[in-house]
C-alpha cells in the first residue's frame, strides 16, 4: 500500500492491531537486522514499530532527494516521508502507481480484515522514492495532482483483494459505480471483482474523491493490484 502526494509525500499505512499511539523518533532510523524485516507475520507493537522504522529508512535511503520530514506512527499505522523538491512543488507524475503486474511492487490491502496477512509485506512495498516512481503517472493523474497539490491531499490506492476480473459497473451497460471526480464515503462500493462466478464488491476503505480509475472495465486483475486512486483529505492535526 503506497500513498504518494502531489508534493512527493509517500505514506505506507498498514493495518494493525489496536494500539495506543506510539512514540515516533524516526529522525535517524536504524536498519532492522536481517530476518526481522516483517516477513514473519508478527504483530506486536514493538515489531510493528521496528518495521515502520525500517520502512521509513528504506524509503528515505532510496530517494534521490533529501528527506525533509518523516513521521512514523503505530496507532493508525503510517509511515510518512516528505522529500523536498528543487522548486518546492510536485515532481512530474507526482501520482505514481504502477500495476503490480508491471513492477511487482506490493500493494497490500489497507485496512484488510486480516492484519497479519496484509501487514508483513508493507516494508517491501515502498517505492524507492519519488525519483523512481514518476514515469507511470498518467497525464490525467498529474493534472489531478496539480489541482490538489496541497500538503493535505493524499492519493489513496484501492487494491484488488482477490484475483479475478474487475468491473466498473454492476452489470453490462449500467452506470459505473464511480467516475473520476466523484466523492466517495468509507465503505462505498467502487467496483466489483468476479472470482469463481462470485461477485465480490470492491469498497473504498477511506472517503475521498476518485482521482483515477487505473484498470479498464472487465480486465483481469491480480491480488494487490491497484484499481483506483482516491484523493483523501487529511486534517492537519491528524498528520503532524
Amino acid at each position, binding site marked *: 500500500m503506497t500513498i504518494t502526494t502531489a508534493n512527493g509525500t509517500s505514506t505506507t499505512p498498514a493495518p494493525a492491531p489496536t494500539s495506543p499511539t506510539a512514540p515516533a523518533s524516526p529522525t535517524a532510523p536504524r536498519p532492522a*537486522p*536481517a*530476518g526481522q*524485516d516483517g*516477513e*514473519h*507475520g508478527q504483530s506486536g507493537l514493538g515489531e510493528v514499530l521496528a518495521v515502520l522504522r525500517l520502512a521509513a529508512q528504506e524509503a528515505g535511503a532510496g530517494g534521490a532527494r533529501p528527506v525533509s520530514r518523516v513521521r512514523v506512527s503505530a496507532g493508525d499505522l503510517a509511515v510518512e516521508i516528505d522529500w523536498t523538491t528543487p522548486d518546492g512543488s510536485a515532481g512530474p507524475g507526482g501520482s505514481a502507481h504502477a500495476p*503490480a*503486474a508491471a513492477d*511487482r511492487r*506490493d500493494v*497490500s490491502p489497507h485496512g484488510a480484515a*486480516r492484519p*497479519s*496477512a*496484509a501487514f*508483513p*509485506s508493507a516494508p*517491501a512495498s515502498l517505492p524507492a522514492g519519488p525519483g523512481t516512481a514518476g514515469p507511470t503517472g498518467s497525464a490525467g493523474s498529474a493534472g489531478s495532482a496539480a489541482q490538489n497539490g496541497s500538503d493535505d491531499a493524499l492519493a489513496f490506492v484501492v487494491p484488488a483483494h*482477490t*484475483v*479475478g*476480473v474487475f468491473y466498473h459497473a454492476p452489470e453490462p451497460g449500467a452506470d459505473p459505480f464511480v467516475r473520476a471526480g466523484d466523492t466517495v464515503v468509507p465503505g462505498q462500493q467502487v467496483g466489483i471483482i468476479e*472470482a*469463481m462466478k*462470485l461477485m465480490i464488491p470492491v469498497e473504498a476503505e477511506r472517503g475521498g474523491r476518485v482521482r483515477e480509475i487505473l484498470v479498464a472495465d472487465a480486465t*483481469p*486483475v*491480480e*491480488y*494487490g*493490484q491497484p484499481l483506483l486512486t482516491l484523493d483523501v483529505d487529511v486534517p492537519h492535526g491528524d498528520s503532524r
Partner: protein
Amino acid sequence: MIKKVLIANRGEIALRIARSCRELGIATVAAYSTADRDSAVVAFADESVQIGPGPSRESYLNMPAVIEAARIRGADAIHPGYGFLSENPDFAEICAAEDLTFIGPPPDVMARLGDKAVARRIMAEAGLPLLPGSRGTADQPEAAAVTAAEIGYPVIIKAAAGGGGRGMSVVHDPDGFDRAYRHTRATAQAVFGDGRLYVERYLASARHVEVQVLADAHGTAVHLGARDCSLQRRHQKLVEETPAPGLPPEIVEPLCAAAVRGTLASGYVGAGTFEFLVDPQGRYYFMEVNCRLQVEHPVTEMVTGLDLVAEQIRIAAGEPLGFTQADVDARGVSIECRINAENPRRDFAPAPGTLTDFAVPAGPFVRVDTHATPGYRIPAYYDSLLAKVVVWAPDRPRALARMRRALDELRAEGPGVVTTTEFLRGLLDHPRFVAAEHDTVLIENLMS
C-alpha cells in the same frame, strides 16, 4: 494436448515443474504469494499471477484464487506440485468442473486413497500385506483400546486423514492408550478437520521403503523401483536413496509388484508412491499411497533417466505410457540430501533468514534442485526446504563419496540461517548409515 500450465506451488518444486514444461514446449504461469514475489520461479515462468498474501491459506491454499489465476491467464492445466492443494480431491474436482486439467490422479481415487482407513481396505483386498490393525476407523476410545490389545503393544494411532508425519501417536502400553487416543483425535480434528483414527501395530525398528509408480489412463501401470527413506526426524525425511540399500531382490521385487497391483486395484492414474514398512526379518507392510509427486522423486529420475514431471503431464493429457516395465532400466545409485533451513541443535526448529552467501555444488553427476540464490530471503510462512542435493554414481560407496564432496561444496549462510548441511554431513560418515543398517529411528537415537 496441454499448452499452458499454471504452477500452484512455490519454492524448488515450482521451478522444477516449470523447467520440464519449458522442455516440453508448454507455457508456464507461476502463481505466487506476496512473500514469493521475487522468487526464482516467478522470474523463470512465462507469466505470473500474484494470488494472495504470504499465509498459505490465503494464497497457495486459496482455491478460488488459484483457479481464477489459471482462468485469467488462459492456462488449460494446473500442476499442484507437492503439499498445498496436491492431495485435495475437492480441488481436483473443481479443476475438472472448470475445464482445467488437474495434473494428478482422478479426484475419486484421491479421495479414497487419502482416507488411510479406506486405502488399507482397498490394498488388503488387492492382497497387499498390512500390519495388524483396526478394520476401518476406530471411532470409540474404548473399542479402539480393545483393538489395540488384540493387535498387541506397541501400537500407533493414526489420523485417517493424516499425512506429512502429523497426527500420529505411538503407545507402548495399555495405560497410556486412552490419553494418547484423545490427544491424537484432537490433533487430527484441528489439523485435518477430521478426527477419525485407526490403530495398527507399531514397528519399533523398521525401514521406510517406498515404490514409485506411474499409471496411464489406459490401464497400464509400471513401477520405477524402490526408494529407502528411513532417515527421518519426527517422520520428516532427511536422506533418501534408490535402490533401497541392502534389500535383496527377493524382497524388493515382490514389494514393487505389490505396488503395481495396488495401483491397478485402486484405479490410480498418474505418478504416485506406495509407502511400506520393512521389518528386520524382511517382511513388508503397506502403509499408504501418496497421490502426488514426492519431494524425493529426483533420485528415481537419476537412475531411470525418466522425467517424472514430463510423465505426469503426458499422462494427464491422456497419452499412454510410452514404455513397459521391461523398458524401465534403473542403473546405479542415487542419493538425495534435503538441505533445510533448520537448526538440528534446536530440535530442527526453522531457522530462516537472508542468505548472504549461497553457492551450490556442481560437477559430475550432481543435481541441485533449489529456488534459493545469493541474497534470497527465506520466508517464514512455508516449509524450510531450501535445496535438494542429489548425486548419482555406479555404486553406493561412490555415491556416498560424491555426496560428501557435494555437501562440502555447498555454502548457505546468512544472519540467523542454520541449515541441516553439517548434520547430514556427519550422518554420511556414520557407520550404521554407511553399512545401510539404518531404520526410521536411527536419527532419533543419534540425537538422544
